[in-house]
């Protein structure tokens, strides 16, 4: 759709930007400088950088085990490998292709490895009949994938940037989402998974930064999934590919290289429709997904131990605040149970997302939570989001819901 479509040059720019903003800190004790868009991803405690913790990822289901057997956590006997997010996604697709002869991958520029390297080597490994380029047509890619899925095949389609998914909106919303229903269950597009890079990247401007998950939230019949890390990306992508429904899988592109974990090399799945509580707490529920998970984590560090320049704005009384951080992971259907349980305990909710506020995902969740938790709420539900503006290139730091805005919203909500 765009001339800016990631030339190798843009790809390098993105990579450079990520490495600039993800420099590790020398000591874990001092909080990272609150200047970049992702100050803490390299040192995030949320990332599972050790084999033992990786293998204990909550909700992990090994797909090579007998599903009917009692679930168990195996730590010995499983290998992990250090992977960034794009490598984990590639690993998931490699497993999907190896185990399912009917699985194919297609999209713009996927054959040489993809502009974000998510399909590196797959065409060589599985053949060009299974991993191939399409002409530059998003509506065509979605329609082609639906056709494959109608025949019971597994279609893994890529839309190069989520910003360019809109030409396929008709195929996704009117067709993929509704086929099972309109045909009385005789046909379905359940074999379709559409992967697409999403969220801001530092300099993506209007059309390499968008977070369109809210537009799909009302498209019943679809599932919408957003991972936060390599382990999540692999497990959720394998679940998405195997789910009997069409899934939009949105990959936060700034995390492709910056987020690194020890990822189990075996075939495993993580549940769709389930949020994950990353940090337990009792005073406030902080709900987010994708890239802002790390802004939120950093904000909690700043709240706990503000650096000298922020000491004056962080009241001492709030420094011991116990904030519960939840990664929603699935936008549709979203995990109402986990969020309600949390808010009923904490009485406060702050929702953080990069997309604009009006009619965004936060609006839906706020409405449902105020309905279900009305008597327990001690402060209005607060939304920290991108402004209701396109993502302007040179203004990005003032547009996205970054660490300081999350910190401010937590403090405001706590002192309401």
């Amino acid at each position, binding site marked *: 759709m765009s001339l800016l479509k990631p030339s190798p040059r843009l790809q390098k720019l993105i990579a450079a930007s990520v490495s600039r903003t993800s420099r590790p800190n020398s000591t874990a004790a001092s909080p990272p400088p609150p200047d970049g868009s992702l100050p803490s991803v390299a040192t995030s405690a949320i990332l599972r950088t050790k084999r033992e913790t990786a293998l204990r990822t909550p909700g992990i289901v090994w797909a090579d085990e007998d599903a009917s057997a009692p679930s168990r956590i195996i730590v010995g006997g499983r290998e992990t490998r250090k992977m960034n997010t794009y490598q984990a996604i590639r690993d998931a697709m490699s497993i999907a292709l190896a185990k399912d002869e009917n699985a*194919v991958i297609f999209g713009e520029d996927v054959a040489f490895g993809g502009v974000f390297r998510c399909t590196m080597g797959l065409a060589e490994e599985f053949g060009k009949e299974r991993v*191939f380029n399409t002409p530059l047509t998003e509506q065509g890619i979605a*329609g082609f994938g639906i056709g*494959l899925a109608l*025949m019971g095949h597994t279609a893994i389609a890529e839309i190069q940037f989520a910003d360019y998914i809109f030409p396929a909106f008709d*195929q996704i919303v009117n067709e993929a989402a509704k*086929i*099972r229903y309109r045909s*009385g269950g005789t046909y379905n597009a359940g074999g379709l998974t559409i992967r697409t890079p999403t969220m801001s990247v530092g300099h993506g401007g209007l059309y390499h930064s968008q977070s369109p998950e809210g537009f799909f939230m009302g498209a019943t019949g679809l599932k919408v999934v957003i991972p936060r890390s390599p382990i999540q990306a692999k497990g959720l992508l394998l679940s998405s590919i195997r789910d009997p429904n069409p899934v939009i899988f949105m990959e936060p592109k700034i995390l492709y290289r910056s987020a690194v974990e020890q990822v189990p090399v075996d075939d495993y799945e993580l549940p769709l*429709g389930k949020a994950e509580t990353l940090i337990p707490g009792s005073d406030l529920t902080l709900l987010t997904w994708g890239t802002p998970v790390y802004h939120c984590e950093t904000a909690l560090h700043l709240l706990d131990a503000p650096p000298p320049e922020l000491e004056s704005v962080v009241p001492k009384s709030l420094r011991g605040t116990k904030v519960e951080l939840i990664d929603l992971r699935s936008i549709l259907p979203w995990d109402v149970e986990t969020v309600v349980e949390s808010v009923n305990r904490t009485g406060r909710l702050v929702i953080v997302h990069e997309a604009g506020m009006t009619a965004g995902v936060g609006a839906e969740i706020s409405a449902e939570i105020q309905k279900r938790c009305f008597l327990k709420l001690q402060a209005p539900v607060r939304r920290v989001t991108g402004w209701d503006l396109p993502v302007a290139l040179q203004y990005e730091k003032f547009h996205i819901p970054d660490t300081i805005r999350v910190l401010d919203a937590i403090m405001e909500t706590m002192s309401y």
Partner: protein
Amino acid sequence: MIRRELSVVSRASSAFSRTFSHSTTRSRDLLPTTSSPIVSKLKYFNTVTGSDAQIPTYRLLDGTGKPLEGAELPDIDEKMARRLYEHMQLLPTLDNVLYNVQRQGKISFYMTAYGEEATIIGSAAALENDDEVLGQYRESGVLLWRGFSLDKIMAQCFGNEEDTSGKGRQMPVHFGSPEHHFHTISSPLATQIPQAAGVAYALRRDPNRRSRSIAACYFGEGAASEGDFHAGFMLASTIPSPVLYIARNNGFAISTPSSEQYNGDGIASRGPGYGIDTIRVDGNDILAVISAVKEGRKKCLEQGRAVLIEAMSYRVGHHSTSDDSFAYRARAEVEDKKRIDNPISRFRLFMESRGWWNADEEVELKARLKADVLQAFKRAESLKRCELGELFTDVYGGQEPWNIKEQRQELTQLLKKYGNIWEPWRNELGKFKNKGQDLLKDANP
């Protein structure tokens, strides 16, 4: 025979690998992205025939059912001819009844296929019955040809409990049946065109159907203006996908005449632009349609990629029951077309010239078809709708999401409270099988 099939397979597979290999330019005189010859004379062009002439229309029978000079008729015996004719006659019989039934308010909507009987029945007959069909909405004749019963047609139009196309969820004429390899119709135009490429690619990847089955995709000349037409044609020509695209050019998209739909030489002129083998056929000549579709189907399998047939006809009926076409075209024009260029009478004359049909048989056939249709209509009319709970099923495969479950429970509670006292609901509940009791029995106390 076996030898021939094998050669088809090997040709098809070489087409497959050609697609994915890079072509190299041999001559230094050529540009890197085309094998176009270089010329020094300035000349624009605007025709695919190279002579400023229009693409010709392939026809075998003239208006009186007589073969044209040099025409090679398809191999059709009396039995096949009678079957073709009966199905051509079945379409207007069915259309007459359902059109009138809609006018009486017994069904909500209907679309006839008047004037396109030869295109629809001829193409259906030339396809294999397990070729995957993706249609627009005026192709129910393909289903009838494949044995989809009149009861099922009626069940869908009435949305009753026997509707296997969609449990009464879609508007009338949105048929579908995996058993008959007919993908469920949807209203958004042209969405089926890129989907057909994916279906065909799947056929190509299936060892049991490769070299044996194609996808056949129908659409009108109006739908061909959608972006999905462009997308589908590109995909099916660049990614080896054996789709036979059948454009029904009937001159109108609702009120818009084709002169306001495109400025080129119809839809056929676009095929070569995509590198697709193309033919224009007289859509009112069932023998020409059969020959063109058979040959197109063969090309699809041999080349492993898309082929285009533009079938020229005339939409004799209104666009739908929501349209009065005399608001934008003269009644006399339509009457002329019906009289002068009628696909059914043309084929009848052909059959009569062979001694395969006569006036008595015509009377008997029309009476029999009408009786069959009326019988199916009466049966459908007496049936209830599906259970009300089907409103909430089939949205997702697997586990039902919480929001749908809760909303079903909410409707159930409302039914308990108002189902007997709120007349609009009470009346409506009576039309459903079990009157909504399937929901109420699961209600929380």
